[in-house]
């Protein structure tokens, strides 16, 4: 493949310069939007062909969501024109966008949790002051949409009781009920299991077959390659390219997104495992409702190796992680660190685990890893704030903490490199780097990492993976839990598959195929019998 410099004027030409046969559904011209000092969208031009699936990729903060929010009328552009079906419209609010046939499925669903599916569908699109006629019409209409687009969902179910995948269908149904011809989906697969994502793609293909236009915002290149017709790339508020999907490659798109060459495969050497550092013995853990989620699990992690735990989300991985790191009491069993049994029971279990040399990068960085309203330097000492480095008396040595934070922000390339910035103002990838820096720089013996790259953009993923491998090569034991099978396969030296609270199999990432692992993740363990 030839090298492409994204700054080069000779970058890939727009996919279709002339008007396509089906016409443009949406044309954006010179769209600008500023939020204070941040220029979120700079002179954006974008044309979407009717009846296609058009992908928009870009790293977090590239301006994709802002652009779509402008199209959906949630924000108003500072300047620029929007054409819908060839006519110029100044979209003032969401109601206006809906009237023009533009519907949006937001990344965080806009559903009322304690309403029924039907109530959610009619909210804002009621026919009259009384609800009954609207509800009756919606019930009939949903019935039709369900069969037409294969979008089955129980209209009387309460939204909080149905799965995330089903909730997303409700969002799609909401848009279709309002007569959407163009459907915008913002990071739709971030919250879905692989099976749910496949189902979603089937629905999108049906929509396309019925002549609807779909705009898919994502940062997962695999999805772009699998389903879109055209793809536009955004970087730092600018539209850098629009190409036909068939004429591009993941490598090229990654390079356009990041602005430099990115290695999509992880470059790692052979593992040299030493002595056992972390040992989990017959662990039994229950969740908040008292249901046993981890059923008699035993395994060990040696120095200089990465053990990956694969599995479909919700099979006990979260409870296992929380228990090993002292956040959740185990019913029975032991966690042995470096030969010494860890006493993890009680509210300060996590603190004792840390003191013993077990660092933890939690699955949910915003809820467990950071206090998002704290500044960067405050976040960088969370959980370690009582170490003597930051003062021994009742007062905190703020200067020392800030000094350390300033060093770490540089080594981990956190952007922007501002230790006084609030945690919530960093992008997902940079938030994760803050957590990683905090946990890794204490030189722990064991690192437990949950979902290290969930919601993290490509450039940061590469960095985070390299850091984890560096830790392994420094002789640390690493326990990695991820629902991204690709990530487990490329990072781990040994894969344990978890299903229904048990370790159902072990695999060598060098030889195991995706199919074999998939079967184990679904609880089919015939493979052992076959051996």
């Amino acid at each position: 493949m030839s090298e492409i410099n994204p700054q080069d004027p000779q970058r890939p030409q727009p996919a279709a310069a002339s008007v396509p046969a089906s016409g443009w559904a949406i044309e954006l011209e010179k769209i600008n939007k500023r939020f204070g000092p941040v220029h979120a969208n700079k002179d954006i031009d974008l044309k979407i062909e009717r009846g296609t699936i058009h992908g928009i990729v870009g790293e977090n903060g590239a301006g994709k969501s802002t652009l779509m929010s402008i199209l959906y009328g949630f924000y108003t552009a500072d300047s620029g024109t929007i054409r819908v079906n060839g006519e110029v419209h100044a979209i003032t609010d969401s109601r206006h966008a809906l009237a023009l046939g533009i519907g949006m499925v937001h990344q965080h669903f806009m559903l009322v949790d304690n309403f029924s599916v039907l109530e959610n569908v009619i909210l804002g699109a009621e026919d009259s002051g009384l609800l009954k006629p609207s509800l009756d019409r919606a019930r009939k209409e949903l019935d039709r949409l369900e069969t037409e687009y294969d979008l089955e969902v129980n209209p009387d179910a309460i939204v909080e009781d149905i799965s995330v995948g089903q909730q997303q269908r409700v969002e799609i149904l909401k848009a279709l009920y309002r007569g959407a011809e163009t459907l915008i989906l913002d990071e739709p697969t971030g919250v879905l299991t692989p099976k749910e994502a496949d189902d979603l793609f089937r629905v999108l293909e049906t929509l396309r077959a019925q002549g609807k236009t779909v705009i898919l915002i994502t940062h997962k290149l695999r999805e772009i390659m699998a389903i879109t017709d055209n793809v536009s790339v955004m970087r730092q508020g600018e539209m850098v390219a629009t190409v036909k999907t068939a004429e591009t490659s993941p490598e090229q798109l990654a390079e356009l997104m990041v602005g430099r060459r990115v290695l999509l495969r992880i470059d790692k050497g052979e593992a040299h495992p030493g002595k056992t550092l972390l040992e989990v013995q017959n662990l039994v853990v229950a969740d908040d409702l008292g249901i046993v989620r981890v059923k008699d699990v035993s395994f060990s992690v040696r120095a200089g190796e990465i053990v990956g735990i694969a599995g479909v989300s919700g099979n006990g991985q979260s409870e296992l992680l929380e228990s090993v790191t002292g956040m959740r009491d185990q019913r029975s069993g032991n966690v042995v660190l470096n030969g010494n049994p860890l006493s993890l029971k009680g509210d300060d279990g996590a603190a004792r685990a840390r003191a013993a040399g077990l660092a933890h990068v939690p699955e949910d960085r915003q809820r467990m890893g950071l206090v998002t309203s704290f500044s960067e330097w405050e976040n960088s000492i969370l959980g370690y704030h009582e170490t003597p480095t930051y003062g021994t008396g009742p007062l905190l040595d703020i200067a020392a903490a800030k000094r350390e934070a300033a060093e770490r922000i540089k080594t981990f390339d956190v952007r922007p490199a501002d230790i006084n910035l609030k945690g919530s103002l960093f992008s997902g990838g940079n938030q994760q780097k803050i957590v990683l820096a905090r946990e890794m720089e204490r030189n722990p013996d064991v690192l437990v990492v949950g979902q290290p790259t969930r919601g993290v953009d490509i450039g940061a993923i590469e960095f985070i993976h390299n850091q984890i491998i560096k830790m392994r090569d420094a002789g640390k034991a690493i326990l990695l839990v991820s629902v991204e099978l690709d990530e487990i396969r490329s990072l781990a030296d040994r894969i344990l598959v978890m299903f229904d609270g048990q370790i159902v199999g072990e695999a060598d990432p060098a030889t195991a195929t995706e199919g074999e692992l998939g079967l184990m993740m679904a609880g089919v363990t015939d493979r052992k019998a076959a051996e």
Partner: protein
Amino acid sequence: MDMGAILSILDATLRLSTPLLLACLAGLYSERAGIFDIGLEGKMLAAAFAAAAVAAVSGSAWIGLMAGMAVSVMTACLQGVAAITLKGNQLIAGVAINMLAAGLTTFLGQQWFHQGGRTPALGPDGRFGAIQLPFAAELSGVPILGPIYADLISGHYLLVYIAFAMVAVTAYVLYRTRFGLRLRAVGENPKAVDTAGISVNKLRFQAVLITGLLCGLAGAYFSIAQGSGFGNNMTAGKGYIALAALIFAKWKPVPAMFTCLLFGFLDALQIRLQSAELFGIEVPVQAIQALPYVLTVVLLAGFIGKAVGPKAGGVPYTKER
């Protein structure tokens, strides 16, 4: 205890639970829309004063009622501007209303009427009288049902009937109308409402105005129906009890009615039990008077379980980046 005594306690229960119920339903509208309203007390107090003052001057209970409602709605508007438009803290906006009402009613009362903050005693035209329902006298002879109809159901102020009718109206509005659906939605997930193309702030303002109207009714009840004139701090914390009742009822209209009846019953019992003897010793009046409040605490702490209110309650809505 004979039938007459029971009926008289129940009769008092209806009378005492009426302002609670009106205030509770008032709170229901704004809280369901996502605005915590600790200012029910202040709005009621302001309305009670305005109703009594205007009724005293004009000599008409109806004009007094209108004035009470108008003042309560204006107070609600003030609170709305602070908590919705200016995105201020809802708790503080409510507390400010309470303090303002407590101070201003006493001050104006003294300035205008020179009776130590009280308004002049109202004549029969200045306050609402009891309404005799049709055939009450004729039917009172019928065993059991007759006295229940004649003594318990008939013979209350108009506002008592309005309060209980409002329960049905509120339930209907909340669950059967477009406005109700949107109201419930905006308290749970205002973003969902915004993306559906409905103005969050407008909806919340409508809710707050309804709260103002109902608080006006509740306040007027104190001074120109139950009482005949305004006295200092005459609402006596009923606004807070109404708020407690709302939580106890999990923000639902029909349970709200039963909770208010329960609190009203405790209050009625308290009046009845004054001078009662326990094991030959007279129970101090203060202890009996404290009973409803003690029970409120016990009920809220012990029996309510987990009360999950409207999810977006207390948070001003801002379109975020």
